[in-house]
């Protein structure tokens, strides 16, 4: 099958087949990062631009490494260095970038819906690297990939997402994708950060032990420290007391539970170091899988509308090996 979408704006609305195809494609790319020479020519001659209106080290770096392992040229702009400070609108900035004919634009923006806004106006694939409190699709894809590797499946699992659901794009993307893939999602946090509307889509509890009980996966969210000034919780100490994941709270989960965190972590607040560094933690695997997921997304969206390869057996990923065809050349030849 093919990925029939021009952009990756969010995971809401994607079919189960779309998600599975993205995950399968990502899985097939993992091997490239295990090689001695971590580079394939798949996106040679392609240009990928990332525009970040919010600070991010991890996501931007992950996209950059993913693009470079595919041999794409990667140009990175950050808001402080861009025209945002000169009063240029988002649309004008993006139009100027699009006029330079990149093959994909990766956008991180503080406004929910910003990538949707651009996608409706530009003739260039847009990849959402996080929009406001809305979605962070590549994060949820790497989370699903990590879960699938450990559990062999996503369907039928119970996943607890703990923390600031209200403001979290990671939570929303995971909620949409995990539900589509057949998991049961539990949202855990104080009522100030888990609005009642979410009960339509997930189980909601304000009790951490209740939330992690018999969970297959516990996903901790970063708590934004500036939220305490807005009375979402009285102090980080009190937040940690009720919603910080430690070994004692974890005891209620399934024995083979895995612990995830999108990073960066506030150690000792939402997650105790003993848990973050403990045997159930798959946090570093998430980071590794982030590269494969972003390689897959770039491959499917930035390679210029070609039919992707039929799913390939492990070890012969698209673009793997010296003999793999260079797709652009094949098309033009």
């Amino acid at each position: 099958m093919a990925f029939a979408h021009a952009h990756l704006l969010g995971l809401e609305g994607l079919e189960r087949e779309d998600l599975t195809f993205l995950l399968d494609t990502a899985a097939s790319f993992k091997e490239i990062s295990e090689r001695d020479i971590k580079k394939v020519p798949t996106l040679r001659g392609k240009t990928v631009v990332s525009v970040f209106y919010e600070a991010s080290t991890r996501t931007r770096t992950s996209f950059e490494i993913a693009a470079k392992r595919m041999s794409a040229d990667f140009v990175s702009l950050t808001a402080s260095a861009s025209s945002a400070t000169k009063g240029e609108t988002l649309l004008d900035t993006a139009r100027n970038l699009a006029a330079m004919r990149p093959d994909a634009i990766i956008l991180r923006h503080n406004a929910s819906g910003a990538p949707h806004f651009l996608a409706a106006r530009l003739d260039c694939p847009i990849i959402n690297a996080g929009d406001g409190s809305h979605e962070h699709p590549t994060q949820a894809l790497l989370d699903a990939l990590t879960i699938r590797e450990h559990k062999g499946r996503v369907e039928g699992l119970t996943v607890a997402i703990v923390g600031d659901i209200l403001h979290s794009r990671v939570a929303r993307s995971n909620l949409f994708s995990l539900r589509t893939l057949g998991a049961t999602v539990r949202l855990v946090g104080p009522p100030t950060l888990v609005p009642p509307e979410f009960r339509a889509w997930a189980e909601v509890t304000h009790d951490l032990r209740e939330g992690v009980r018999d969970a297959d996966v516990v996903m901790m969210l970063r708590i934004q420290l500036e939220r305490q000034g807005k009375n979402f919780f009285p102090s980080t100490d009190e937040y940690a007391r009720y919603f910080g994941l430690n070994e004692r709270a974890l005891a209620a989960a399934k024995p083979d539970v895995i612990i995830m965190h999108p990073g960066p972590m506030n150690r000792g607040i939402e997650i105790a170091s003993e848990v973050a560094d403990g045997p159930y933690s798959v946090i570093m695997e998430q980071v590794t899988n982030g590269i494969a997921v972003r390689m897959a997304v770039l491959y499917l969206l930035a390679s210029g509308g070609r039919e992707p390869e039929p799913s390939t057996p492990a070890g012969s990923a698209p673009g793997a090996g010296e003999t793999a065809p260079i797709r652009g050349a094949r098309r033009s030849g």
Partner: protein
Amino acid sequence: MPDCRILGGLVIDPASGVHTARDVVVRSGRIAAVTEPQGVPPGLDDVDASGCWVVPGLIDMHVHLREPGYEYKETVETGTRAAVAGGFTAVACMANTNPVNDNAAVTALIRDRARRAGLARVYPIGALSKGLQGVALAEIGEMHEAGIVAVSDDGRPIVSGGLMRRALEYTSMFGIPVIVHEQDEEIAADGVMHDGAVAARLGLRGIPAAAEESMIARDIALLERTGGRLHIAHLSTAGAVALVRAAKARGLPVTAEVTPHHFTLTDQAVAGYDTDAKMNPPLRSARDVEAVRQGLADGTIDVIATDHAPHHADEKNVEFDAAANGIVGLETALPLALEMAREAGLSADVLIAALSTNPARVLRVTGGTLGVGAVADVTVLDPQRTWVVQPERMRSKSRNTPFAGRTMTGQAVVTMVGGHVVWRAATGSVTPRPLEDA
């Protein structure tokens, strides 16, 4: 000016209790007679109203004409063009211009611009507080002498309950209403749409219904002993309807308005991050839409007003958080009201009262009736005529409407102000009144 007759129409005039086929005779700018249909063929200066409703000129008591200061969005001239094309013979314009209409000089300027435009009547609304800052009362008496019909800081809620108390007390001396944009800004926080499932899904910050309702509750409580008249602008929630209903039952001098978009659309309209669905108060839930319709039907809500809020395309062609609030409404209000009335089973009399009789009563201005001797402000509307909203063809300077492409049923075919036909749909022509009559 030529005398004329409006022949063969269905006259609906709630003020005089008429709802029957009548001819209307206009002489010297006033209603000279309302007679049994004579069945005579219309002469050159007459209006053929067969198949149409003949109603007292529609009055939109809540518009933003943007002049002075924001002429790139709208002017008094373009705004009143839109008004007459939409069937409105009069509008009341809010004070959030630049400079703010918080003094008699700005009030006089707006009235002068309106006189020169010669289209709809324009009633300026003065700022309640100096500079709309919500701190000190504006010089309400001087503005009243210059022609304001109400005071309001519209767009900005009156945060200070103390200021609100004094405003109600002080304005009682002039008999003008205090028009309030009810929203507790602390509860609304930095919300950009209705707080509900759609906001949760889109990751947009929500404005709870309680933000509106708590302020209405406060102001109704004040009204119990301040005197003055309270008018709630663009009421949008079921709880707000209940509060006003209860206050009216206690006999308090409170009135309320609802916009066409709040009785037509829900927060679902925001789903694609459509900035033309961004407004304040925000589009609410289906339950709220149902409640405001019920409020119109039972008289809790007196007035339909558009909150016509023109914005330049650049102010809407941005990410949702950054977009300006509001939509243009003058040219789509009438068909949306007719559509709602059909769906909600609202009588034509209640509808016309909300669009004409009641706003005239709230503002205590001329018009709102076709009684003999009244000024000849008349709207002749075809309730069946269908047309498609094409923003690029609107008379307003701005195009920000969520109704683009929507098929509308109902249109003003003739708009008459002071006996002069200023709008004729058949030719699409807008004709100003002569300056000496304006």
